[in-house]
């Protein structure tokens, strides 16, 4: 099933007996195939906003359109079967095996046994679990990270056009969280779902989101923008404060070394004379036969080796650690692709 567009139109939730709305006239559009992150401090209404989409919470005013059609016209149970749902505590059914858990929605939709079995194995592989190892286990026999993966597989079971994810990696230790985030991004590059992703962590929002909706107390939308715009031009003091004083540094994690113009330095093979010509950097770099960096001609170590896929933030961090201004950048084969300098990184920040 292809991805759906999602549109909040002045969507509002006022709980019975409350004077302040939990979500206040929220309007935003999520294009098909993009990840929209709802982020904000606790009590800002981000989870409420997400749960209004599959009618786990009913809107009191306004509307939410899924592929142009109001969710309020749909029967809740039917609507929910078409929308993937993954939550922080995962909520796997403890009395069912991994396979039965993943098969929940296909069974509700009455798929035949063989189709379900094939789909379960396919999904487990998709989330990097070995089907023969995990299929027949119970949730209590899995690690936290494995449970999260099963939760994501279960949410993807019927290939829904929209996924709702409420802090899906929130309860995982930092190292595994990073792995799961990367895995999900890789998966998303493949499956291209429309995703509404809730988190309170601005770093996670910047990493995961194609667009970020920053919400503030009272359920109001403070800004809705792609991560780079959010960091370079926060809409108000609240957003500026929420993204943090290090928003300049955060922008560095949005850009990869591959995406910026690197410096060229003269390359020499061992024992040869440096070539003449116009270079950005005057220090020749000694390379081996295959073009891999050995050392600077001056004799200092050509460290760290930056890779093209590194984000600028990691590259800068490595350079600061080595206390160097310049570092060779290598491609997948280890061949020199250029030189990264602290100066270039500075320039990349200056551009909006």
């Amino acid at each position: 099933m292809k991805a759906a567009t999602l549109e909040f139109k002045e969507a509002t939730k006022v709980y019975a007996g409350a004077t302040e709305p939990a979500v206040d006239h929220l309007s935003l559009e999520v294009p098909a195939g993009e990840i929209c992150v709802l982020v904000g401090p606790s009590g800002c209404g981000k989870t409420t906003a997400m749960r209004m989409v599959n009618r786990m919470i009913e809107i009191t005013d306004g509307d939410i359109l899924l592929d142009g059609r109001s969710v309020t016209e749909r029967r809740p149970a039917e609507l929910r079967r078409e929308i993937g749902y993954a939550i922080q505590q995962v909520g796997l059914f403890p009395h069912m095996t991994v396979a039965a858990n993943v098969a929940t929605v296909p069974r509700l939709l009455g798929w035949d046994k063989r189709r379900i079995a094939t789909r379960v194995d396919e999904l487990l592989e998709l989330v990097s679990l070995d089907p023969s190892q995990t299929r027949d286990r119970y949730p209590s026999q899995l690690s936290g990270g494995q449970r999260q993966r099963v939760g994501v597989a279960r949410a993807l079971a019927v290939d829904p056009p929209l996924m709702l994810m409420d802090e899906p990696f929130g309860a995982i230790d930092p190292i595994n969280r990073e792995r799961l985030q990367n895995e999900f991004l890789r998966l998303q590059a493949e499956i291209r779902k429309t995703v509404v992703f809730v988190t309170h962590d601005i770093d996670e929002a910047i990493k995961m989101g194609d667009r970020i909706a920053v919400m503030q107390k009272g359920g109001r939308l403070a800004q809705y923008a792609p991560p780079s715009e959010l960091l370079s031009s926060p809409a108000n003091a609240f957003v500026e404060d929420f993204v943090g004083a290090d928003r300049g540094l955060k922008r560095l994690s949005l850009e990869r070394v591959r995406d910026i113009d690197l410096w060229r330095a003269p390359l020499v093979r061992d024992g040869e004379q440096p070539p003449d010509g116009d270079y950005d950097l005057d220090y020749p770099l000694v390379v081996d036969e295959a073009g891999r960096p050995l050392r600077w001609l001056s004799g200092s170590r050509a460290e760290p080796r930056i890779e093209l896929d590194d984000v600028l933030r990691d590259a800068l961090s490595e350079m600061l650690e080595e206390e160097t201004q310049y570092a060779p950048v290598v491609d997948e084969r280890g061949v020199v692709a250029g030189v990264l300098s602290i100066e270039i990184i500075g320039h990349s920040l200056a551009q909006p």
Partner: protein
Amino acid sequence: MILAQVQIHNRAGDDSCVADNGFCPNWIWDNFDRYVDPFWGHVYLTVVAVAIGFAISFALALVAYRRRWLIGPIVNVTAILYTVPSVAAFFLLLPVTGRGTTTALIALVAYTLLILFRNTLAGLDNVPDEAKDAGRGMGLTNRQLLWRVELPLAVPEIVAGLRVAATSTVGLATLAFFAGAGGLGEQIFADINFKSNVVTAGGLCVLLAVALDVGFLLIQRAVTPWSRA
């Protein structure tokens, strides 16, 4: 009762062990048939009482699970039933339902309600919120959630309640003869001074209680493989 006592001794013949009211394996061996019918009577009283009690409590628990305000009244009523002394209950019912199995069953059922209701409800209440939320979020209707998620997860508590109810009903059913419903109690009280008699009838009660307890435990293990995983 006096008659029955006389009868046992008369049939016992001239054995001195029996005359001394002692523990006489030979007598037990020779007279075992007289315990078979009361034993099955006892099984019947226990099983039927627990089954009816469970059906009622289960229905009440399902209703009260969705309508929480009913919990208080149901617990109060079943708790009052539970506190009425059992012999008194049999005698209270006699003028209404007369002597017989029905009277005994009504009282026995009444005693199972509190424990079965409370355990079933506790089992449902202990289902993890996140499992319920995920189930609902994936599109299970309330009924599907109840039968596919909530009740299976409540099985350990429900069975724990059944085990307590069954063993205590075995005990209470020994008093059912006050209502004229027979059972092993009638045998015990027929000749309470005769050790052979008391040991045999009492032993069968214990055996029945243990058998039911183990039976329920085995059923639970069979239907909840996940709880041992």
